[in-house]
């Protein structure tokens, strides 16, 4: 399949095939691939680049699963570095920000699969947060967690989601998808729900009117073809339900886990994966360059390779940082805006559902870094 033929299909709005996707992963000209992805990105979003004000809660790292790529989980309470937050401890993370007047709009909640907590721990966690700030958007529990609750607490997936939604759940994050191909899944995360089960949780959520995100963990042992297979399965579900908002490719980080001998993907592989994702997933509106795992510099560059979203301020992220991510724990809104503006893009502050909170002049830093004029230096000492 020649690149020109694929480009023609992309421009005509035709879905790409499995073979097209594989050919793109093997296409030698990265810049050509990036330019085509950028064309699609600009057709969909122009120069707009989204971010939000959020923070993370990882309420427990105790987890029955032993995924090879994970540096975060501990098997049981009492293991070294294992922790499970008391609910007031988790609630206080929101309360302290509200008290400080921080205009946070979203909490991202992802946890280990803890086998000793009652289901009410989770419903109360959500309800307590909503009591503190009713307007906060709770994007919580990956499909893997939902599926675990279904098994552990003897409820259907739908029942789990219904009860969590009643307690305050607003949407699902996209984690836990890893790679759907059974060959890979059995080797790197055999304890997790399988690909069909993961997709089924999202299908159920979409039918109930919940929006969700989706992810792909790349850079472990999967082949390019297995990445394409993964993305096409997401695309098929999106054709069915239209419930995915954002696709987030997640680069594997090799430190402190059982796959330490693998080197982890380099930036050129990151950018290639982003570009292919933008071209294959024509029906998923957004592509997020999650700066925590890509690094700020590569994430900024990815804004020219198909990505239109940088995630948010994040704060207190644990999962990737325990795997050796050297990125900062947080970026201030001004820092995120500057990254976007310096990329030559237009920053848009969004909420979780991509409603615009602010854009244009209102967002531009008061003293933007500009290259015009000579008087831009100030001596500090």
């Amino acid at each position, binding site marked *: 399949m020649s690149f020109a033929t694929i480009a023609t299909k992309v421009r005509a709005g035709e879905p790409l095939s499995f073979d097209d996707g594989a050919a793109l992963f093997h296409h*030698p*000209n*990265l*810049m*050509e691939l*990036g*330019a085509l992805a*950028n064309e699609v990105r*600009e057709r969909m979003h*122009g*120069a707009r680049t989204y971010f939000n004000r959020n923070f993370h809660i990882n309420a427990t790292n105790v987890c029955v699963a032993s995924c090879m790529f994970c540096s975060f989980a501990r098997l049981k309470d009492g293991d070294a570095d294992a922790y499970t937050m008391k609910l007031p401890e988790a609630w206080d993370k929101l309360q302290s920000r509200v008290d400080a007047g921080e205009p946070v709009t979203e909490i991202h909640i992802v946890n280990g699969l803890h086998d000793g907590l009652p289901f009410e721990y989770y419903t109360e966690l959500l309800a307590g947060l909503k009591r503190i700030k009713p307007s906060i958007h709770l994007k919580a529990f990956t499909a893997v967690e939902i599926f675990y609750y279904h098994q552990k607490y003897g409820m259907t997936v739908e029942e789990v989601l219904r009860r969590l939604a009643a307690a305050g759940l607003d949407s699902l994050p996209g984690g836990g998808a890893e790679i759907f191909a059974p060959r890979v899944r059995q080797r790197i995360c055999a304890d997790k729900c399988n690909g069909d089960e993961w997709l089924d949780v999202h299908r159920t959520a979409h039918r109930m009117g919940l929006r969700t995100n989706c992810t792909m963990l790349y850079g472990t042992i999967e082949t390019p073809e297995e990445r394409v297979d993964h993305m096409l399965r997401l695309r098929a579900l999106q054709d069915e339900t239209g419930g995915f908002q954002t696709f987030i490719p997640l680069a594997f980080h090799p430190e402190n886990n059982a796959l330490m001998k693998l*080197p982890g*993907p*380099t*930036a*050129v*592989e*990151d*950018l290639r994966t982003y570009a292919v994702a933008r071209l294959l997933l024509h029906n998923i509106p957004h592509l997020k360059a999650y700066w925590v795992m890509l*690094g*700020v*510099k*590569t994430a*900024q*560059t990815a*804004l*020219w*390779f198909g990505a239109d979203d940088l995630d948010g301020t994040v704060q207190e992220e644990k999962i990737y940082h325990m795997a050796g991510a050297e990125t900062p724990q947080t970026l201030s809104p001004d820092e995120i805006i*500057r*990254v976007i*503006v*310096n*990329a*030559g*893009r*237009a920053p848009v502050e969004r909420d979780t559902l991509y409603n615009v909170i602010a854009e244009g002049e209102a967002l531009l830093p008061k*003293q*933007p*870094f*500009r*290259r*015009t*004029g*000579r*008087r*831009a*230096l*100030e*001596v*500090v*000492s």
Partner: protein
Amino acid sequence: MSKLRLAAVSFLNARPITYGLERDDRVDLRFDLPARCADLLAAGEVDLALLPTASYAGFAEDLRVVPGVAVAGRGPVRTVVVVGEVPLQQMTEIALDAASRSSALLLKLLLRERGLAPALVEVAHDQILDAAAGTRGALIIGDAGFVATERFEHVTDLGREWTALTGLPFVYALWAGRAGAATPADVALLRDSLRSGLAHRAEIARGWAEARRMDPAVCESYLLHNIRYTLGAEELSGAAAFITRAFHAGLLPGRTSPTPVRLYDDGRPERPITNARTTAPLAVPASQDSRPRARALSLDTLLADAAAGLRLGFDDAARLYDQAPTLELGAAADARRRRMHGDDVVTYIIDRNVNYTNVCVTRCKFCNFYRPPGHKEGYTLDRYVLAQKLQETVDLGGVQILLQGGLNPELPLSWYEDLFRWMKANFPLAIHGLSPEEIRYIAEIESLPLRTVIERLVAAGLDSIPGGGAEILDDDVRRNISPLKCSTETWLEVMRQGHALGLRTTATMVFGFGETSRQVLTHLEHLRALQDETAGFTAFICWPFQAEGTRLKLKDDTSAVRYLRTFALSRLYLDNFPSLQVSWPTMGPDVGQVALRFGGNDFGSAMIEENVVSQAGAVFKLGAADIERYVRAAGFVPRRRNMRYELLPAS
């Protein structure tokens, strides 16, 4: 469809323009003398003619010009020269070749500008070389210029004189015709012909030299370095300035106003700038010349031309830097790299950065490494420590020491000479050492000429000079950030002297001090012009200012995307620099790797030690195996090199 009828002069410098046309059956091409080409156009026997600019200017009707294609030059041209036994200002008479009306016009203008009025006498073409004797000089054009330059003591290159006078390129010849004579498709055809000609310059030079028993290297160097085959904003300014000056000097008797330079439509609409950097409002200053209004080339055209190796003008490059979409700028640089280096190899070197002293009198605000003389943390490495470092370097497969330090008033020239001799006697390592600032300082404290200092350092073992301390070669910027450092001119002069003594050097640029796009371009222009003159630079390296812990507060864009844009622009603008090195120590290996796709062909050095930027926040470290992994993952084959960028045998 009827064929496009063309007439062109048959000089060597026109061959790259006509190369593709000679093989294209869509055109009917004939070669003739310049005056005949103009006559054919006047008589309507051809649609377009490649005319000397003087013929164009003196043409009775207003013509149109094909955008993007010209025989032009910035600085020395070597084939339009006045030679003689005395300097130009002492000549009482200058002999002219009767066939060189265009060059004669340029000479008359330049003589007027310099207030000189020798008698001008015409002699036959084949007698011109013998005409120069005593106080009589001769204007030599064409291949004879190469010979004449060797034979006479006093040579005035009119290309150099023109650029020195106006700051602009000179346009020797351009495609011209009547309005409507060329469609956008015709323009594209002429540009395509040039592109293929540029790719075959070596072959053209060989053929020309063989037929005339000349040295092919001379012809090739001429086509590569003296002639610029582009007609961009800068060249149009140059052509317009020439016409305007000639008119006001009364040298265009048939005209009642300066001949306008109007372009044919190339069919490429100006790209809307929605994709452009939204940060910087476009600050392209008004041009300072009074050229007749000509439409600028589209960004697409500029990028395609630059990717093909056509020389980018200053204003055009500033537009690309401010407006070109990031990936398209990168793709053009990637294409340019591929043309220069092929698809495969990315080089790197194993060396060690030894900072022999941190004592420095310069107190640059952006530096976190130096200590002033007398400070308790000041050091100068002793031989014992140095020996350890050098032996480790040899043991780790290193081939070179990058030796740089502060401006330490305690260290005389003899200290460096002793050090170099000791190093050479004991370790098999090349010395890539002492940036221009250090050399200038040694010359200052020793009260010796730069040349003497460099000669003595070379005699003691210096192999090459690193290009550090250039920061931004614009004195407004330099006065602000490092007022005690050497001026732009001094930095360039050290490099010029080093090149003249046979040393190869690198060149650097540090951006992100709040300088303007034009100041960045000024830096690149200085480097390109010196490289035209000496061809002594091996590589260019740039990185953004690392602010942490220094006395300058970061107020500029030093992000990855700006680095990649600046890097790609440098690849396109520095068309005479063979290598561009990515800066992973400052940007990180990932951005360094991506820069290989924005024009880079060298991954720098597997560094064993570095002290300066790591004191200001850069913390990346890579060994040879890491470098090779990054290079391979980007689709290249890693190869080790030495400082001269020669490949070492694969280990």
